């Protein structure tokens, strides 16, 4: 599997990371080196092996379905780059 610059651009877009046009060939090359390393996995016989979900067999704990937290909007917004009137502020999303 070889990644070309168009695929690299698509991956960057999916990851929401801006990559300049000029940097795409080098990025594609890096991906190919890493994927080449990863492709060793194809040698392994994994027939009948379930993909691991959790490393410990224990079931995830469940808790009561009740409100345990909340009512602290000031703390929630304290680290926002732009917060106004009790909300996170972002560029206009809907025209």
């Amino acid at each position, binding site marked *: 599997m070889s990644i070309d610059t168009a695929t690299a651009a698509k991956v960057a877009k999916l990851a929401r990371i801006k990559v300049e046009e000029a940097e795409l060939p080098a990025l594609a090359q890096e991906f190919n080196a890493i994927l080449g390393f990863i492709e060793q996995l194809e040698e*392994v016989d994994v027939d009948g092996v379930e*993909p691991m979900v959790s490393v*410990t067999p*224990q079931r*995830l704990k469940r808790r009561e379905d009740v409100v345990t937290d909340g009512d602290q909007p000031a703390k929630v917004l304290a*680290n926002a780059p732009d917060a106004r009137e009790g909300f996170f502020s*972002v560029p*206009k*999303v809907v025209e």
Partner: protein
Amino acid sequence: MSDLNKLTITEARDALRKGDVTSVELTEACLSAIDAADALGAFAHKTPDLAMERARAADARIKAGDAPDMCGVPVGIKDLFCTEGVPSQAASKILEGFKPEYESTVSGKLRDAGAVMLGKLNMDEFAMGSSNETSVYGNAINPWRAGNSDAALTPGGSSGGSASAVAADLCLAATGTDTGGSIRQPAAFTGTVGLKPTYGRCSRWGIVAFASSLDQAGPMTKTVRDTAIMGAAMMGHDPKDSTSADLPVPDFEAMLTGDIKGKVIGIPKEYRMDGMPDEIEKLWADGTAMLKDAGAEIRDISLPHTKYALPAYYVIAPAEASSNLARYDGVRFGYRADMAPGDGITEMYEKTRAEGFGAEVKRRVMIGTYVLSAGFYDAYYNRARRVRALIKRDFDEVFADGVDAILTPATPSAAFELGKEVSDPVEMYLNDVFTVTVNLAGLPGVAVPTGMDRNGLPLGLQLIGRPWEEGELLNTAYALESAAGFVEKPARWW
């Protein structure tokens, strides 16, 4: 007492309880050592006022006779832990200015036990790296130097600042986190002890997530006994982490008898890598002989899927990272890029992430995005998870056959020069070759310094234990530490 910053946790605890020293004195000694060691780049954010306040509170507590083991002990906290009101950036530009409104469970447990936080420690950005060279703060530097050379060496990564600070006696101990070897490799590179507990032992709540199925916090200390003490203070069930184990945490220190007679130590043949330096080979053979002399039975074992651990890791960890790091979007916390006229929300995300993440983080997020994308999910991600199941099965079978612990090298070399290995990401990934299997299988692993290379740099061995049996593992590590008698310290140049 002089050189209070050089004490171990054990020595400090005992001296504090006897009234021979106060936490204020210990803390002042560490703060001076930290201020004199900026050249090491170990501390990214210093918190002297907070430290002194906590030291005074600890002294009052000790006086009142209510002092847990960690009470009054000055420690450093890796920047990956969220600490209330104190910058917690995961060494990334994208978390610039972030001051959490809450405290991570693990650092909170240490705080509640009376430990004194001296500041936040340098690390690789988002814990992605093996040399501490991906940090927004710049490199952390190893206090050790090779022979007469003054070349700057890596303290390892990702917990490089933690390792450097402990080795240079800037703090008595530090927290680290380990996703593929990030506690054990830096410990080995700096002649210190580092434990990655069983997955689920330490709560992950409030620790900036890298790869959630692999991440574990652990102690980085000067001795195995200190690791037993600090480890116990960090562990325990936390309802806020659904993968946290609801199991009692034993008194690990009480389990350090040094008696390992009849214990079966496995030596896995697959860890004898092609081109492994003679020094590492010898270190491993020496360590094996020490455990044998202490009465353990040495058994050759096979972990046949070892070779595939690194490639599986470099699918699973980036996949999880790409999901975890999706939260850094410039909306809720940290950095937001300047916008050009006409930029919409997508441009805001893309610019923020391009400017906020460093090269290695971007690389891994994008690899993770790729292996999870439609059409490749089965070929890469599901295959890697199947291989992971086989890697774990290898360990399960060996333990079922009666092996108590496994001895391996901790790293393929001693600490290397900064700037040497960053050019090839795959080459850098090989640093984790002996440690990454342990994360994939969720097992406890500990690095113990047992020797030096020809240039006078420390080398470490790794012991791998059965799940939840950190106590027994640390006892074996204690026996190894006692036999190796590693006491060397770096000569001060900073």
